[in-house]
């Protein structure tokens, strides 16, 4: 019996050690991103070219009180009061937001896109309910954050953040109020000290503009977003980088600037992108009239095509006429030899897929329940930007350039997809089983390729030393769709070129926006 007890004890102790040794908690790649500590404060960013604002001072920000005024001294006391008793959670919050508001809001947006990127479950009669912006909490929740929706949300929010920070920098330079930790030695700087003027607070500008924009894009999340905005502002105050009046002025400025973008968003044709049964039928009949096999949904029950009129949304980087000009020529004829060969090629890949095919297909799939391909490129960009020590306003500018490219790439891509309404490989050869889900829209041109071509182009401009890497990534993303059985070679090759052409518009803008001069 003694032996048994000894053995049992050994077993239990060994198991306990194993359990303790195997801490399973996962720490996200950017969870411990360092605090922003920009090489260049970009003090002249108030002169950079804005996206929608006609002038950086379109919305007035009143002059702040003097740093010797009793009101300001009371604000310093507020900071000192917080700093005396900071909880671990508050310290964590300061650390979290110190990595940069543009980064953190971009991550929050990606989280929301992934959360809302689910297609509706069918009705009992085999039709599908459509999310309703006027009743966002009813199933299916509004929005369905599919790739076009996501591309547009990222672009609007990034562009609005950029314009808001340009205005913020304009007033920072104009009023030149010092940071609280500079004014009063009793205020501890919990973030790297800079000489960037503190009024209005860039953290609060970002909180205000983003919270306001989110009302349009994620109405179910207004409450959660408001809490995050408050967190960001309070963290700015507790860190010693901003006072209450810096924050109040910043938030008001951000919210006002957002209104210009919201007004644009309501009239950019996105609201009509779902189309009607008449539109869906017309796509089919027009294609048949051209002598081609039209696209059919491979979902069961058959689902209406995803946002067929998204190609008519107003782009950021060029006008609507340019969308048509950027649209490539037709895909190979559906009944022709080339299409037959390309279909066979795809079948060849999926017949005996290698582990490496699966790796790249799944790495780039960004399908249901993910932050979509635009979100993936944002993630790639954000992790590289962290290493570049950009100022907050430069972060915003670079994210805006990237996301406007991705949205406009999506517009041209969707315009092309529904202009040709081309069948997927699996429709032409049902033996083609795919290594990831088939998206519910036409094949030509590949969305992943178009997004990636555009992203690689603008990112290669922003971080030239990585240009070749971005191009290789774009190529892999594009290829992943072919070896995964989702796209033909033509879809991928042409998509990459069209994407790159869109990205060039962003590069041309970047060259003259004032940030690189």
């Amino acid at each position, binding site marked *: 019996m003694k032996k048994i007890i000894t053995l049992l004890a050994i077993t239990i102790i060994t198991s306990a050690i*194993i359990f303790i040794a195997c801490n399973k908690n996962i720490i996200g790649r950017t969870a411990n991103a360092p605090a922003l500590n920009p090489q260049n404060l970009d003090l002249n960013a108030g002169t950079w070219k804005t996206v929608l604002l006609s002038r950086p001072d379109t919305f007035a920000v009143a002059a702040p009180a003097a740093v010797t005024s009793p009101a300001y001294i009371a604000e310093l006391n507020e900071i000192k009061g917080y700093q005396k008793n900071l909880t671990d959670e508050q310290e964590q919050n300061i650390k979290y937001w110190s990595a940069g508001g543009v980064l953190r809001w971009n991550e929050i947006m990606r989280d929301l896109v992934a959360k809302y990127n689910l297609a509706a479950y069918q009705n009992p009669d085999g039709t599908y309910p459509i999310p309703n912006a006027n009743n966002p909490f009813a199933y299916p929740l509004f929005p369905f954050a599919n790739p076009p929706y996501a591309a547009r949300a990222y672009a609007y929010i990034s562009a609005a953040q950029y314009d808001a920070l340009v205005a913020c920098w304009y007033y920072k330079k104009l009023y030149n109020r010092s940071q609280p930790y500079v004014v009063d030695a009793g205020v501890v700087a919990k973030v790297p000290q800079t000489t960037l003027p503190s009024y209005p607070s860039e953290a609060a500008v970002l909180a205000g503009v983003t919270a306001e924009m989110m009302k349009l894009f994620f109405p179910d999340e207004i409450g959660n977003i408001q809490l995050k905005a408050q967190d960001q502002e309070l963290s700015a105050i507790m860190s010693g980088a901003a006072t209450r009046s810096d924050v109040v002025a910043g938030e008001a400025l951000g919210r006002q600037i957002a209104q210009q973008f919201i007004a644009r968003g309501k009239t950019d044709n996105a609201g009509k992108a779902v189309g009607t049964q008449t539109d869906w039928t017309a796509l089919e009949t027009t294609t048949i009239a051209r002598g081609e096999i039209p696209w059919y949904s491979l979902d069961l029950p058959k689902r209406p095509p995803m946002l067929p009129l998204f190609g008519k949304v107003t782009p950021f980087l060029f006008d609507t006429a340019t969308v048509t000009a950027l649209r490539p020529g037709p895909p190979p004829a559906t009944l022709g030899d080339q299409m037959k060969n390309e279909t066979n090629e795809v079948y060849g890949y999926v017949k005996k897929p290698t582990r490496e095919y699966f790796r790249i297909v799944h790495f780039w799939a960004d399908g249901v*329940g993910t932050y979509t391909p635009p979100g993936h490129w944002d993630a790639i960009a954000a992790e590289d930007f962290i290493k570049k020590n950009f100022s907050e306003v430069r972060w915003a500018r670079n994210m805006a350039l990237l996301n406007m490219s991705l949205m406009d790439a999506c517009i041209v891509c969707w315009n092309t997809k529904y202009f040709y309404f081309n069948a997927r490989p699996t429709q032409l050869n049902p033996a083609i089983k795919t290594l990831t889900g*088939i998206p519910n829209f036409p094949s030509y041109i590949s969305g992943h390729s178009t997004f990636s071509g555009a992203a690689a182009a603008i990112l290669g401009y922003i971080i030239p030393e990585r240009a070749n890497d971005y191009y290789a990534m774009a190529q892999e993303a594009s290829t992943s769709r072919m070896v995964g059985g989702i796209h033909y070679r033509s879809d991928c090759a042409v998509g990459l070129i069209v994407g790159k052409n869109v990205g060039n518009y962003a590069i041309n803008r970047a060259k003259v926006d004032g940030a690189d001069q």
Partner: protein
Amino acid sequence: MRNFYKLSRAIIVSALLFVIHLTSSAQTDQDAIMMSKNNLCSGLMYGHSSWTNYWEGTFKRDNPNLGTVSTSMLSVMGNYGINRRLNIIFALPYVQTKATQGTLHGMKGIQDISAWIKWMPIEKDFKKGTVSLYVLGGTSIPTSNYVADFLPLSIGLHSKTLSGRIILDYQRGAFFATGSATYTYRSNVTIDRTSYYTTTLILSNQVQMPDVMGENFRIGYRSNYLIAEAVVSNMTTLSGFDIRKNDMPFLSNKMNATTAGINFKYTLKKLSALAITGGADYTVAGRNVGQSTNLNIGAFYVLDFTHKKKDKK
């Protein structure tokens, strides 16, 4: 008495209910049977599991984009008696999956090798029967870099596991009752993506796998040549999250299942080293798993190494 059953049975250690659910009659790691010293029982088992309905959280549905998802498995198994109180058990399955509808590609490959140490510390005869206690420790390790993040068609979850189990058995004449409880620790899994959504966005290619608790009860008839039993099993994933409506399943879902079924093992009277096993069960309740019907059949042969040595002399 039990140690004289020359044949024993092996096992499929798979908590992969979405992927594969093949609780089987041949489950030496689940039953109260030991191999004799220097005896090796080895064999092959074929299993088939299929489901059309599944649970997204608590919502039960079918999916015309999958049709019926089926898993076939061929497993090599063995059970070796170090002595009559200490056995080693192993299994290595080849798994193949497919869906009858939709466009998703089926998967196939060698899955996880599993091994158990089974120890019987207590065996006590009472007037009317025998009570025995078994303590088991087990592990499973993926044998290849198969794709885990492609549920419901993945062949496995690609987690390394460590399990501890206690079995209590009571036999009276030819009738018996066995109960067991198992705790399984599951290591984190690396996937091909760099981010994924659970209840929040995770920016990592690592997936935190919740541990699993299982219980198994069986009752039946056990004699030298025939074993027939009814089995009820339950598996509970100790944390994890629900599949959202119309989302895809994910590795770290809360996968729970209760199954009920029957097993038999028949030992040939003319060739008592050979036994045939079979079983069937059905998932009566579940969460984030398929409502699977599982069937299996196997053949096992006992080699007595003690005997061979004697022959040589």
